[in-house]
């Protein structure tokens, strides 16, 4: 049996009076890529953001239920969100490098945790950039501003930045929606390599992307998980009619 990384039980999320997530129950397996698909506003990004407690930043959010990560409920008040976020990294829709050098971008997270030793930081920067397949592109200009990179490179930098924290999980919120097809392909290849070491969840609007990169797929609609299965089954043999309609492009 594969390990279960996140065990989600009766998860409900409200923005004020609006219920954005409705009684979600799902087990996310470790060291696999899980794709979250569904039309805009269906709650897939909101769900992703509950896994590293980024929804805490939104005013008026109320969450009930449980999300057990390795057996510990991460929704509990006792959880230190800073620790949690070092274990659950995130890559955003739009590349968001900080306005500083490539090196400093990668070293940012470790430095925030108090790592000061230059040697250790050098190692982290090199290994993270290698893991994100960016080292050869940038090794000669680590001190250049990260904002001078192309969009695709910036997004790989953001992945490297997440990797630098040595997380267990990487959340990706439509990581390629702002990128061209070639940059997208590179990110997808990277995801394939990274899943050996990390549990990856990816929100995507592209059916092709979900079918290419993921092992499991969850289909969200109006705040509910309509269907969750292996990607193969979802795309070749969906059990729910809505799922079939969505993946064949009849709505969404």
């Amino acid at each position: 049996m594969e390990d279960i990384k996140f065990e989600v039980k009766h998860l409900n999320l409200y923005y004020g009076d609006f219920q954005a997530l409705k009684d979600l129950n799902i087990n996310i397996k470790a060291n696999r890529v899980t794709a979250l698909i569904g039309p805009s506003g269906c709650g897939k990004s909101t769900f992703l953001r509950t896994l590293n407690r980024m929804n805490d930043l939104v005013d008026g959010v109320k969450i009930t239920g449980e999300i057990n990560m390795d057996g510990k409920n991460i929704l509990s008040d006792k959880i230190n969100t800073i620790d949690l976020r070092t274990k659950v990294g995130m890559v955003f829709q739009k590349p968001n490098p900080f306005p500083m050098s490539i090196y400093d971008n990668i070293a940012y997270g470790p430095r925030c945790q108090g790592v000061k030793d230059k040697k250790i930081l050098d190692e982290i920067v090199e290994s993270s950039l290698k893991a994100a397949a960016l080292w050869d592109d940038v090794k000669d200009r680590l001190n250049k501003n990260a904002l001078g990179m192309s969009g695709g490179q910036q997004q790989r930098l953001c992945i490297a930045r997440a990797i630098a924290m040595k997380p267990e999980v990487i959340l990706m919120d439509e990581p390629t929606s702002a990128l061209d097809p070639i940059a997208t392909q590179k990110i997808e290849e990277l995801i394939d390599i990274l899943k050996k070491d990390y549990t990856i969840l990816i929100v995507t609007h592209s059916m092709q992307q979900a079918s290419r990169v993921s092992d499991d797929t969850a289909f969200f609609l109006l705040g509910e998980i309509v269907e969750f299965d292996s990607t193969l089954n979802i795309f070749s043999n969906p059990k729910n009619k809505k799922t079939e309609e969505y993946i064949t492009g009849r709505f969404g």
Partner: protein
Amino acid sequence: MKRMHSKLRIDAIFKTVVFFFTCISVIALAAILIFTLLKALPLFKEVNIIEFITSDVWSPSTEQFGIASFVVASILTTILACLIGIPVGLYTAIFISEIAPKKIASFVLFAVEILASIPSVIYGFFGLTVMVPFVQKLFNIRSGTTLFTASLILALMILPTVVSLSTSALKAVPKTIDEGSLALGATKMQTIMKTKIPYAKSGILTSFLLGLGRALGETMAVMLVAGNANMMPQLIPISEAYLNGGRTLTGNIIMELAYASGTHEAALFATGVVLFIFVCLINIIILRVKRKGVAHS
């Protein structure tokens, strides 16, 4: 077709009107500049420009015009005002944009913006009746009208500029940058200090420079509390400079303009030209800072 034609015509009229009003503001600026320069010009038939700036003897009755002591007093008050006003302003901005609950934040911002709309003579009056006696007692000196008192009032007066512009600069930092930092396990404070402030750097620097410009150009409030003594501030020890009265460039103009004539009057306009050059320098730096900010975003 006809309707299209009249639309185009309205468009053309609108453009003309906009252009006309723009001209008015540009002409006004040019007029002030040319007028001041022309009025200052006669001075330089009598006094050479280097002497005017470097001499600290200002004695209209003997036709000696040197403004070095006023330049020094202006620089001293501006520096101290910024040393006090900028940190207070920046931290207030951080409080408003990042830390305070919404209601408190908007109240503080409102209060600070009220500070901006208080006429400067009121600041001067407050300075004269409250700060001057306070400073006098605090340091046990003969008179509380000092450059230090002027700096305190100026610090208060530049606060609104620093606070409101730094607040908007911090608020303009995209949410994705915050989130990027927090998602890496940074604390809120780390996020503000290491990410948001660097991101908002050009806006924040601009707010500092505008505050600096305001401190340099302020006249009424400074005149009321600075003592206006026509003498070179004694720089060693520096406390000696701040705990005595002094006359700034602006103070010099307003103190004497009412009765000046001839070369004396020209010397006051020349003082204005020097002030104008300082302000221009600050504005050039602001433009550069802004351009740099644009280039990196």
